[in-house]
């Protein structure tokens, strides 16, 4: 017996077996790495293709918290949303939520404040949780009977607490702020509870944050010049069409003629949509199609033709069709009401319909018609902010080639006569919220308050609307803000109907209006 290999090749193979072993180990490692890569890629792919959003069982819940598709193009990544309060404590009045901007928080079944406020929905965008506004942001408000009474949240009433202008300015300011750089943001996110795994960290650093900041920088570039030249919109108000011109159509703020630059108006109630079908909707009555008005409002909230969630919008629209305003808590003198109803019939009903025993009657010769600005005489800024040129771009560019193509927008010459259902929740009054109470509205313009406090949700059982004590513009207030009717767009003139009534008739009419 000899240990000699059988052949030279076998000897070589024996001597070099370590190479084979190393090669096999390397091969095994490569296979393991390849498998890991496949698994990681699979997980990443699974995550980045996740575009789900919660669907709520009740339509009201979906109205308050469900997505209409605004998040992908306009939203804020959830963990940034959660972190901003700690990054900008002054803006948030040192609260760890968004209530400083008037966002409303409900409590969950266990009595704890819900994670997201009403009007903020959540959707996975390529696997990342993103939040942004929905219909309820602008259409859910609160009221109280007494300062110490319970706060009641009413879906579909105007958002009387929301300072959307300040909220938007805060978000835009963050765009170019170093606190949103990864090295500051990520630790703050961790403190806010974010638990990012390694894949998340890579995605956040390379995609989520750059894309979010790019988007913000772009929006800021377009919108900020307008915000800088406009007066603040104020609580419960929004400029519907001017940001739309800048963000959707790329119009430059400096190219907007002075007459159309100020378009802030009150956030409206959205009760009882079915009877409103066919009426001229929006303050200026520029569209008689409920569906188009809804979709246009959704664009205002940040959806785009690509991201819009039509099914969600339809669900909400269907629910709003027959949603009644809650009954008025006011209990005026019955006899005065009866007398006031007669006064109202003569002076108001043909334009506004009337309140029956149990429900509002949407009947009136001129109800839903546009009243020329020369007749109504109210502030024309909102009317002038919607222009023929803008209308043409809306019709030509938005949803073109789809069944949702806009067809019904029109340029009007006045403001539409609105039904007054749920009137008790709709103060302050007129399209721009420039008249604090119903009693003030029945005064001649020069007698109406020049400045009053907005943002108090305690109803006024005597004058109608919310308590709105006089104030001095420019003073800091513990709650609400001082509305100055001398600011452009805030004029409280016009709509003098009823101002010349005899004092008794006026009191009766007010009593009747308190039942609306």
């Amino acid at each position, binding site marked *: 017996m000899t240990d000699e290999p059988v*052949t*030279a*090749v076998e000897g070589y193979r024996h001597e070099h077996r370590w190479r084979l072993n190393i090669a096999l180990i390397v091969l095994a490692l490569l296979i393991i790495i390849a498998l890991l890569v496949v698994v990681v890629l699979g997980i990443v792919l699974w995550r980045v293709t996740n575009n789900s959003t919660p669907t709520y069982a009740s339509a009201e819940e979906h109205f308050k918290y469900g997505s209409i598709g605004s998040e992908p193009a306009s939203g804020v990544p959830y963990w940034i949303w959660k972190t901003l309060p700690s990054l900008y404590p002054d803006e948030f009045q040192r609260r760890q939520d968004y209530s400083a901007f008037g966002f409303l928080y409900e409590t969950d079944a266990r009595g704890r404040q819900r994670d997201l406020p009403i009007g903020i929905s959540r959707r996975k965008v390529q696997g990342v949780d993103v939040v942004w506004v929905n219909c309820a942001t602008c259409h859910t408000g609160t009221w109280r009977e007494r300062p110490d009474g319970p706060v009641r949240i009413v879906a579909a009433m105007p958002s009387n607490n929301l300072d959307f202008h300040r909220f938007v300015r805060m978000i835009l300011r963050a765009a170019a702020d170093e606190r949103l750089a990864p090295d500051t943001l990520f630790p703050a996110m961790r403190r806010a509870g974010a638990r990012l795994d390694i894949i998340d960290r890579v995605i956040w650093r390379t995609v989520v944050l750059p894309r979010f900041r790019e988007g913000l920088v772009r929006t800021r570039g377009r919108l900020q010049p307008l915000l800088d030249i406009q007066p603040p919109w104020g609580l419960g108000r929004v400029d519907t069409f001017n940001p739309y011109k800048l963000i959707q159509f790329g119009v430059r703020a400096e190219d907007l003629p002075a007459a159309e630059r100020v378009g802030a108006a009150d956030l409206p109630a959205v009760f009882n949509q079915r009877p409103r079908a066919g009426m001229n909707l929006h303050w200026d009555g520029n569209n008689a199609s409920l569906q188009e008005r809804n979709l246009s409002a959704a664009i205002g909230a940040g959806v785009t033709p690509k991201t819009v969630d039509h099914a969600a919008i339809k669900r909400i629209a269907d629910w709003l069709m027959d949603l009644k305003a809650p009954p008025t808590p006011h209990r005026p003198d019955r006899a005065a009401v009866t007398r006031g109803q007669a006064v109202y019939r003569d002076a108001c009903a043909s334009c506004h319909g009337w309140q029956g025993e149990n429900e509002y009657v949407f009947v009136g010769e001129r109800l839903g018609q546009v009243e020329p600005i020369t007749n109504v005489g109210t502030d024309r800024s909102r009317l002038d902010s919607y222009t023929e040129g803008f209308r043409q771009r809306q019709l030509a560019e938005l949803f073109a080639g789809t069944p949702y193509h806009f067809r019904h927008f029109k340029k009007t010459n006045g403001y539409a006569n609105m039904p007054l259902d749920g009137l008790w929740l709709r103060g302050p009054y007129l399209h721009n919220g420039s008249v604090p109470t119903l009693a003030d509205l029945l005064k001649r313009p020069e007698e109406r308050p020049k400045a009053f406090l907005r943002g108090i949700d305690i109803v006024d059982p005597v004058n109608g609307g919310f308590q709105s004590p006089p104030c001095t513009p420019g003073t800091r207030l513990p709650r609400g803000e001082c509305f100055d009717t001398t600011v452009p767009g805030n004029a409280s003139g016009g709509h003098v109907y009823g101002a010349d009534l005899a004092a008794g008739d006026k009191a009766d009419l007010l009593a009747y209006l308190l039942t609306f």
Partner: protein
Amino acid sequence: MNDDPIFRELRFRNLTVKNRIFRSNVSGRFDNEDGSLTQTRINWECKFANGGVGAIISSYVPVLMEGRIIAGYATVHRDDFIPLWEKLGKAVHSFDAKFIMQLSHSGRQMDLPGVHNEHRPTLSSTSNKEPLHGFLCQAMSKAEIARTVAAFARGAWRAREAGLDGVELHAANGYLFTQFLSSGINDRTDEYGGSLANRARFLLDVIAAIRDKVGPKFHLQVKLSAVERNNVIPWEGKGNTLADTLQVAKWCENAGVDALHVSTGSLFPHPLNPPGDLPIDVLAVTYDGLISSGVYGFRNFLLFRYPFLRPIFRWIWFRMKKGRPVEAISIDEARAIKAAVKIPVINTGGYQTASVIRDGINSGAFDAVAIARSLIANPDLVKQWASGRDKPAIPCTYCNKCLVNAPENPMGCYELARFPSRDAMIEQLMTIYRARPELRSPSAAEV
């Protein structure tokens, strides 16, 4: 007939051949393990002599047992083999053909080492493994070079003593001489490596030694690869260019070589030599004998056996063939070499058409051609041309099944489509065993 350049005799300095057709070097495993030739080899060579070729170039004949390419092939490493070769020469002469012995040494290109060689790496210019099969090798020392040079000289002397008509040095197709000549293979730092002159030193030493041994009157020709294209395995160097080979050809002429035989490629087989197809499905069943010959044998076998792996080898092998003809594949290189030397030039590379050969001779590309596969397919090819055909009735398809069957099966044509039946094909393969040796009882000393 004399007007046809194919049938015009070819006069070398020391040899005259009756026509311009040489049977190129090809054989099978016909012979004995000790290197002694058999009746079967005589039958094989006479088959072509009978077919009308002017000369037979033997298959490679190792001058040392350590230089065998495939075990079971006849060698010329022993004086007592001279009478055997003499018998072979006479048999070929009886069919009016000349016989030129191709003196050879495998170097590292040893396909089937056999019992004599399997235990050791082969001697070569380099110690780098042969890249296709992974054959092991060891760079020769100067003493080993000197011993090998002397072995070539003695081999030539034995051929002359056997009454053969000349010798050819197989300095082409990747064997030992190529391993010295090639810039892609030779990595020596002594006087046998580096410059072209150094790399050619081994060949020129052998030529000088042969001339010393057999004198100037014995026919000596050299087979060269005009262009090496050594990068069949893509990361290998490209090897010698045509310009290099032109210089080597001139040095050979000056050293007293009588003729040059022009081939191509620095491996055997090489994608361009023999030109044509490579039947990988046949390799899948015949390559198993080579698995243990080289360290890459098993890898290659897997590449051949499993169809999903075949595209890898197909790409390696067929990428060089694109746009090249099969017949007369290296005619341009032959023409260049012929222009550079005064001695006759023989070209090989798929020749099968009389008019192509005539044009080649008339245009000065070469003086003669050497043919293997087309003669295996049609041993009477020359007679068919003589009868006026331009191409044989049932031509060689260049399938190369003869080539890939060589390690395991008798040499012959394996293109079933050329035969009326499988039996007919087998019968053709068996013809070389028809003339049988006379068997006898060995003496006591012989067993």
